């Protein structure tokens, strides 16, 4: 085989690979047509870069106060773009650091709930029958509980450690994921193409890998995008109550809490973190909506 033909052959293989995944290529194109979702995606990308790079560009530190400026409004002259808080710490850097923590908690807690939820849901759906029944009864029972209050209890019990925050949130937030994945698995299991694969002699492992998992992916992606903002919200809520991230670290929720206390004298200390938090949640929600429309053509009218 000469080099050019081999290249052509490999190229042909590549295109075949792409055509094989056309569901996701299709979905990607549909997503790009959705303006709100694209805006969400771009805003999130900018937000992540800003939050990571911002603190490095600033001359201030998130812990060390600027002794000359307490509660000063945003100004270019002092170099405090977002102003300073009551003890003179730069709010721009604090907002960025807070963003890092909020996004990190959002991602990690979602990952925890993803792992638990997908495993649990897939096992229940795949086993079916009595095992499924018992497993889902358990989910129903836990579901009826006041979720947020358990997170609060967990935070009080285990102290306010940042790693426990996302473990606690993730460990409680997996129920929806388990339900969705279980429903999807249950319906996939009995689809004709799975039957066909079995008839062709595919092993259980092959069926799961080739047919069940790829078809679950869409739902899971959508759900993950919608879970991240929820988790960020829970973390902010906890930090707002003073149960979340502790000094000297901070998060958007903790900053909003501080800002709310200085509302009358220093409204900017509320406005900036609140704005960043809201814009991020906004972007995630738009992206999630767009992904749902893109990956689930059935829902489109």
């Amino acid at each position: 085989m000469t080099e050019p033909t081999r290249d052509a052959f490999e190229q042909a293989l590549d295109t075949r690979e792409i055509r094989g995944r056309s569901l996701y290529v299709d979905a990607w194109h549909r997503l790009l047509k959705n303006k709100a979702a694209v805006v969400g995606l771009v805003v999130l990308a900018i937000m992540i870069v800003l939050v990571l790079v911002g603190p490095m560009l600033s001359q201030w530190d998130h812990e060390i106060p600027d002794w000359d400026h307490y509660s000063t409004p945003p100004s270019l002259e002092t170099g405090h773009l977002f102003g300073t808080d009551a003890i003179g710490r730069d709010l721009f850097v604090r907002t960025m650091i807070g963003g890092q923590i909020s996004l990190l908690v959002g991602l990690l807690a979602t990952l925890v709930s993803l792992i638990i939820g997908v495993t649990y849901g897939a096992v229940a759906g795949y086993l079916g029958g009595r095992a499924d029944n018992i497993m889902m009864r358990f989910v129903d029972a836990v579901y009826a509980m006041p979720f947020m209050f358990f997170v609060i209890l967990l935070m009080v019990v285990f102290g306010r450690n940042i790693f426990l925050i996302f473990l606690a949130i993730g460990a409680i937030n997996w129920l929806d994921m388990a339900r969705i994945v279980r429903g999807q698995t249950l319906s996939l299991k009995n689809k004709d193409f799975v039957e066909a694969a079995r008839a062709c002699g595919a092993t259980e492992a092959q069926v799961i890998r080739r047919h069940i998992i790829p078809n679950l992916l869409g739902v899971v992606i959508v759900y993950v995008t919608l879970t991240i903002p929820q988790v960020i919200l829970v973390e902010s809520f906890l930090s707002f109550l003073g149960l979340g991230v502790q000094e000297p670290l901070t998060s958007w929720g903790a900053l909003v809490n501080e800002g709310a206390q200085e509302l009358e004298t220093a409204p900017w200390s509320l406005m900036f973190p609140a704005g960043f938090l809201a814009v991020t949640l906004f972007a995630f929600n738009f992206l999630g909506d767009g992904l749902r429309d893109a990956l689930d053509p059935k829902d489109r009218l």
Partner: protein
Amino acid sequence: MLRYSLRRLASAIPTLFLLITVAFFLIRIAPGGPFDSERALPPEIEANLAAKYHLDEPLVFQYARYLWQIARLDLGPSFHYLDWTVNDLILQGAPISFTLGILALVIALVLGVAIGAWAALRQNRPADYTVMSFAMIGISIPNFVMAPLLILLFAITLGWLPAGGWEYSPSRMALPVVTLALPMIAYIARITRGSMIEVLHSSYIRTVRAKGMPEKEVILRHALKPALLPVISYLGPAAAAILTGSVVVERIFTIPGIGTYFVQGALNRDYTLVMGVVILYGIIIILFNFLVDLLYAWLDPRIRYDDGEAEA
């Protein structure tokens, strides 16, 4: 229907039991106790206190004692607000929280459904996009951000409404209720719009229109009722959202409701108070889910829970 209701209520008992058990042991694992204070108490007093509240017994005994106590509808004495029983505290706080929550829920239902249906009738027109963008903003702004912003605008800048405190008066209740209701209005509007659009596309609506029924009748008599089903199923999560929302709102507006008790109780290791509030919340959520199922059956004749018996 009655049989279904009874069976459904009975199935709530294990849930409630699980809730009580998990919450009981969780809060007992927490380091620190209700009588820890800055000043160390003499060991004799500590022992006496522990003995009085049976804290010196093995945990399992305390648990059994607690279950027996709850069975008699007695939530026990508060460990922090001495001379108060948890029953008294809850009876004092709950009416305040319930008033706020129910007002917010009613407002959200009326406005949310109206706005959602209105947007659905203008699908993909500028009015629809505008309203739905506002709804997305409403969902994305957390209540603990919304509340300070409302205070900043209406209490500090404009000076129209008080920034906090509690009494049963419209001016004191306005901001807390609005804070609780806004995200729910947004959710309900989105849900209503989506389901309304789906219903309006269905064939029976086309039939009704073809028969010449006036548009107003079509919408009010034929489209709205089935379009409300997803809104009904949102009531369960809505109840939970109001409960958690009340924690924030009561804190920001300094309202003495049960949400405040919960966080303070957890921080003070006021075991009985926390348990009392958790149980109350659990019951509310279970009741709401039950209500949702009943409403569903009533609105949608296809889902009658009749245990296999034919129902007339």
